[in-house]
């Protein structure tokens, strides 16, 4: 964070938050509506056939996964499409670079905003999940904290992808090759143990796997054996990945 300042990063986060607030009703709707769809379709519909997974009702198994997936998607969407639009089409970053803020301020601001937005969405979604009676307390109160760290990790990956992309359509590859497989295979809708050994080894390397393990642990109040490793994975990635992404993106925008 060589030349970032707290005031600068805060100003950039503030700018994005102002935009969010202007249309907050539209922005808050999806994270409130989506869990209904998932919990009804998969929890009750599919759950009626599956009954129990790892000793818990299927709906309890997938509810935390849906929240973890939202953290991933919100943060990744923000630093891919949204940041790219601000950078490339709206020239928002160019305008801000003429002010005392440095490119590093701007980029950390984008990452923190994305993590912040992931936290908002995960918290809203958790309210619905709680209304279904699917959360254990007090561990469930850790979900926003996890959301922020997990958001940082995926925001960093998204910003890195943005620093490499030449046309906006290339993001669809990132979603198809990175987001969708994680959505399906990270211990989200069925346990990792169901995967063949080789596939499981790959799954364990994926960031969403660790996000799901931790969010599920917090939601159920019952931590899996892998939890300490997942904490280390997320904690390290939450700083290292954005730091790397900020550096590569900085090289792209300073010329």
């Amino acid at each position, binding site marked *: 964070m060589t030349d970032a300042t707290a005031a600068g990063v805060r100003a950039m986060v503030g700018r994005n938050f*102002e935009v969010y607030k202007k249309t907050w009703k539209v922005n808050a709707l999806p994270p409130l509506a989506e869990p209904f769809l998932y919990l009804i379709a998969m929890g009750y519909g599919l759950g009626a056939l599956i009954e129990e997974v790892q000793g818990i009702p299927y709906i309890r198994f997938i509810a935390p996964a849906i929240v973890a997936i939202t953290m991933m998607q919100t943060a990744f969407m923000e630093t891919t499409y949204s940041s790219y639009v601000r950078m490339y089409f*709206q020239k928002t970053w160019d305008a801000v670079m003429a*002010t005392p803020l440095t490119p590093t301020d701007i980029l950390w601001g984008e990452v923190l905003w994305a993590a912040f937005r992931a936290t908002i969405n995960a918290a809203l979604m958790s309210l619905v999940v709680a209304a279904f009676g699917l959360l254990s307390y007090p561990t469930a109160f850790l979900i926003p904290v996890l959301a922020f760290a997990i958001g940082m990790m995926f925001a960093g990956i998204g910003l890195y992808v943005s620093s490499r992309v030449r046309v906006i359509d290339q993001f669809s590859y990132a979603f198809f090759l990175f987001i969708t497989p994680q959505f399906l295979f990270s211990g989200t809708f069925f346990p990792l143990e169901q995967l063949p050994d080789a596939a499981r080894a790959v799954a364990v390397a994926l960031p969403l796997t660790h996000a799901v393990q931790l969010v599920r642990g917090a939601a159920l109040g019952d931590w899996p054996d892998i939890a300490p490793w997942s904490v280390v994975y997320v904690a390290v990635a939450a700083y290292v990945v954005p730091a790397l992404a900020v550096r590569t993106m900085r090289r792209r925008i300073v010329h």
Partner: protein
Amino acid sequence: MTAVQARGLTKRFGGLTAVDGIDLDIPEGVCYGLLGPNGAGKTTTIRMIQAVSPPSDGRLTVLGLDAATDGRTLRGRVGVVPQEDNLDPDFTVRDNLRIYARFYNVPGDQADARADELLTFLNLEEKRDARIDELSGGMKRRLVVARSLMNDPKMLILDEPTTGLDPQARHALWDTIRRLRRQGKTILLTTHYMDEAEMLCDELVVIDRGRILEHGDPRGLIAKHCGSEALEFVTDEDTQKMDAIVAALDGVPHERLPDRVVAYGSGLEGLQHRIRDAHDVDESVLRRATLEDVFLRLTGRALRD
């Protein structure tokens, strides 16, 4: 004090040298013009002066601050109207100013007051709640000028502020620029309109291919390169007639174009009568020499880019 001092300022993009070791001394409180054809390196120079683009080589001091090490402070004291409008489409007119103030750490109530003051100054009060895509080109330009003044800068950098504006909007912006200069701000201006530069600039440089060709005040440059008058003889693209006119000029500095010959000097009226009477000339015009004549003589007539 000097507002900008550059020594050997250079910018390379890969194999291309966009700015090639230029020296600049811009005094405080003047309106200074940076002129040059497309691709000359004006915007690149400006981006280095505003401490957004790091120079490849050379030393650069702006308002007494080293651009390489004091960028943050420097940007806080300079206002910029970039060549391309980059207003924030996510916000209304007034919010564009209010949000921008945050980046300068201007407290909220002060920012509100300043935004309203500048909207009045630039005749935009009626549009305060409009969206950016509802504004005309001239209004957008004025809003960018307002935004560049939110931090009450000591120096204002305007990169082609009047390109694409109608005459009314240009004149209004000229008035604004003159008022800001009277307030004591240093103004650095680029433009492709030579009448504008001649009228507004106390001093200017002409650059081409990243190098300085000439600098001075507009009147001095005109006197030096063209004298006081330009005399144009128009023909119907007939080479023989043109040859005859050129011969009759007998060494007076001139330029030859497809359908006309332009001679430069002072007291050319006698020459005009002599040539008009003795040769087949469709039209002859004796006019004041302008900065545009100087510019074309210095940079040639070949198209750039």
